[in-house]
């Protein structure tokens, strides 16, 4: 493993308490030294990166991506998905289990995590919370954790039955991992393809109400309390892609009560509203759907006040022919790995005054903490040499045609971004250079 020296940069490592000029030496895949400018001048390295004018930060961590392998490699593969991650500054991604077949066994998890899949950044996975993600019987959490699971989820679907969700939370609490919940009461969303409201009415599309999200969050919080009281356990509920002010309020209140609830918000939910659908643009179709502006602002408020624990992309690639369908028939989801940092800096930092260090914390240390990735999300000495170097001042336009992902389904084609990734280093290997 080559040694890498990163000189002249501004190091932002919230977990390490650093926000200043530092030079960095990476050796044997780990952070070997973090020093004031000049100290490492004499150090020898095979590669030196001049990061003048750049921010040097822990590699970004995404707890919510869809890599489509096995089963749907025409949309994405682990190799292409992680290449897109690297281009976006991510060095750790957590793959969701809704592959074909569903990742619900030790064998499938092992196959997915095998180096032969060609991941260029560190790949983690959350296997299914229930067999086949059918919501009926929980998988073997102990065995799956031993095989590398960092949490459990039926993402794409909710765990609807109270009894099953309770069992999932109890089992996950026993091994100190989260249950990540796709909060959608599907009994209320049949046939719906966007957010309920005036835009849906005008477009003649059936809308998902905010209650379809908040009812599940409410139920899950109730289960947490019940388990703490009755079982003496402290389960960890992670609410995925929160999109409504109502759910955000419930999470805020649950945190204030001291429950172990974390949540994520996707960049599209703090950037766009349902108006982005325009004339039925399927690239703006996702689940949960884009909401109204009050909800969008509530996501920003949640990010600003600390209710939101991390930013996650919900990177969900689909082939062009699948999106070139009638809006109601097209699949949900957009790509997001290459636009997350640029949108977060544009909307949260530039638009709402969030310090860059906080943006980085929301995209590195905090997501790493949610899934307990030891030695990641920080650049403290001995941590993994997972680094992103980016120019925080560059404004640029994202071009979907140049994406590393196999798919192009994004509403951000041509959208302005702030902050351009110059290099991504995963465990000491340069995996992207801009």
């Amino acid at each position, binding site marked *: 493993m080559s040694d890498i020296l990163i000189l002249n940069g501004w190091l932002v490592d919230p977990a390490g308490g650093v926000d200043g000029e530092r030079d960095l030496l990476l050796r044997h895949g780990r952070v070997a030294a973090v020093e004031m400018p000049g100290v490492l001048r004499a150090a020898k390295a095979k590669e030196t990166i001049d990061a003048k004018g750049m921010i040097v930060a822990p590699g970004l961590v995404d707890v919510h991506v869809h890599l489509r392998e096995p089963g749907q490699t025409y949309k994405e593969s682990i190799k292409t998905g992680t290449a897109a991650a690297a281009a976006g500054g991510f060095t750790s991604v957590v793959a969701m289990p809704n592959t074909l077949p569903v990742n619900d066994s030790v064998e499938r998890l092992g196959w997915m995590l095998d180096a032969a899949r060609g991941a260029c950044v560190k790949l983690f996975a959350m296997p299914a919370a229930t067999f086949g993600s059918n919501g009926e019987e929980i998988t073997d959490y102990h065995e799956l954790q031993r095989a590398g699971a960092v949490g459990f989820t039926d993402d794409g679907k909710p765990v609807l039955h109270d009894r099953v969700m309770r069992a999932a939370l109890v089992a996950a609490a026993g091994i100190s991992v989260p249950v990540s919940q796709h909060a959608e009461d599907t009994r209320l969303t049949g046939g719906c393809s966007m957010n309920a409201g*005036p835009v849906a009415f005008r477009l*003649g599309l059936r809308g998902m109400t905010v209650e379809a999200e908040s009812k599940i969050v409410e139920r899950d919080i109730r289960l947490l309390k019940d388990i703490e009281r009755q079982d003496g356990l402290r389960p960890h509920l992670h609410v995925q892609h929160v999109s409504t002010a109502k759910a955000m309020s419930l999470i805020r209140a649950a945190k204030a009560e001291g429950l172990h609830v974390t949540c994520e918000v996707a960049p599209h939910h703090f950037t766009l509203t349902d108006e982005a659908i325009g004339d*039925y643009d399927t*690239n703006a179709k996702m689940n949960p759907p884009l909401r109204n502006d009050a909800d969008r602002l509530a996501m920003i408020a949640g990010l600003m006040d600390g209710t939101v624990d991390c930013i996650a992309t919900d990177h969900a690639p689909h082939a062009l*022919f699948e999106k070139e369908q*009638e809006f109601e028939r097209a699949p949900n989801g957009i790509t997001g790995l290459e636009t997350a940092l640029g949108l977060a800096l544009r909307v949260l930092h530039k638009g709402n005054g969030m310090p860059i260090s906080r943006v980085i914390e929301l995209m590195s240390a905090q997501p790493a903490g949610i899934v307990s990735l030891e030695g990641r999300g920080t650049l403290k000495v001995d941590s993994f040499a997972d680094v992103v170097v980016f120019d925080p001042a560059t404004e640029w336009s994202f071009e979907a045609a140049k994406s590393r992902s196999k798919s192009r389904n994004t509403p951000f*084609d041509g959208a302005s971004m702030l902050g351009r990734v110059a290099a991504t280093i995963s465990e000491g290997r340069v995996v992207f250079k801009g």
Partner: protein
Amino acid sequence: MTILDTGTIAAGSLLTVASLTVAEVAAILAATDRLERMAAAERAKILEGRRIALLFYESSTRTRTSFELAAKSLGAMTTLVSDKSSSIEKGESLKDTGLTLRALGAECIVLRHANSGAPYLLAKMTGLPVLNAGDGMHEHPSQALLDLRTMLTRLPGMGGRLVNAKTLEGVTVVITGDILHSRVARSNAMLLPRLGARVVLCGPKELLPEDASGLGAGVEIERDFDKALKQAGSRGKAVVMMLRIQRERLAGLELDLGEYISRYQLDEERLRSRAPEALVMHPGPMIRGLEIGGEVADGPNSAIEDQVRHGLGVRTALLVRALGAGGFESVTV
């Protein structure tokens, strides 16, 4: 490449009434008048030999026949493709069906589809002019235009009026029934206020969500049909447009039909006592005895057959506009 990049919508398309300026509406109605006055033999030369595809993914009597007869009266060749007797049944995508029709020489596609927004997809993918003949719960723009023409010919004092932003000033249109699922209601509520009309939407919450008022300025909601009728009847010229309950789209919603009939049916007694002068309209198909009494449908206030007749004329003008045929400079706006 994203969907938005794949194509622009061809001039002459009509996907939504929102894309029409008031001047374009006026031009379409003026062309309708001229085409109707024209001798049949002369009219049959306008689109002689041109190819129009009627792509119908939903069953339809009056809209399909109307477009077909309109096209034929202009001398065009038509072909009907329905989802029941084509490759669509085998799973062919809308995009590929559209591209096939284009390759076969179709110059314009009239599309009826169960999914809202399908005409946008077809128009972007093919680059052909597309006429929206009803898409899901979204819009039915040609219906709104024929409804407008019906009002202009039937409401007192409207004859010969120039169509502009004040043409329907003083007119209240009460649209009653299953607004939620009605593309006719959406198109009318978006078009008529731009000509000065006040549109009052009426129906129970299940069929008329509050979000409907977001369709635009000049659109109001009144739950009490009797109040809406009385108010409309006392304010000036009144139109009552009744809508069918679209049972096929109710998606598990349970309605007490007896209660619905008592609250929202337009029967003779209700019409006579609340708005005796009102023009009665219905886009069809009607369910006599449910949303409308048979005696009202056949009564002197009814303009229902006029609507069908005007449909033929308006669609003739829309096809001429779509194909940019010569001699109708005010149509090819």
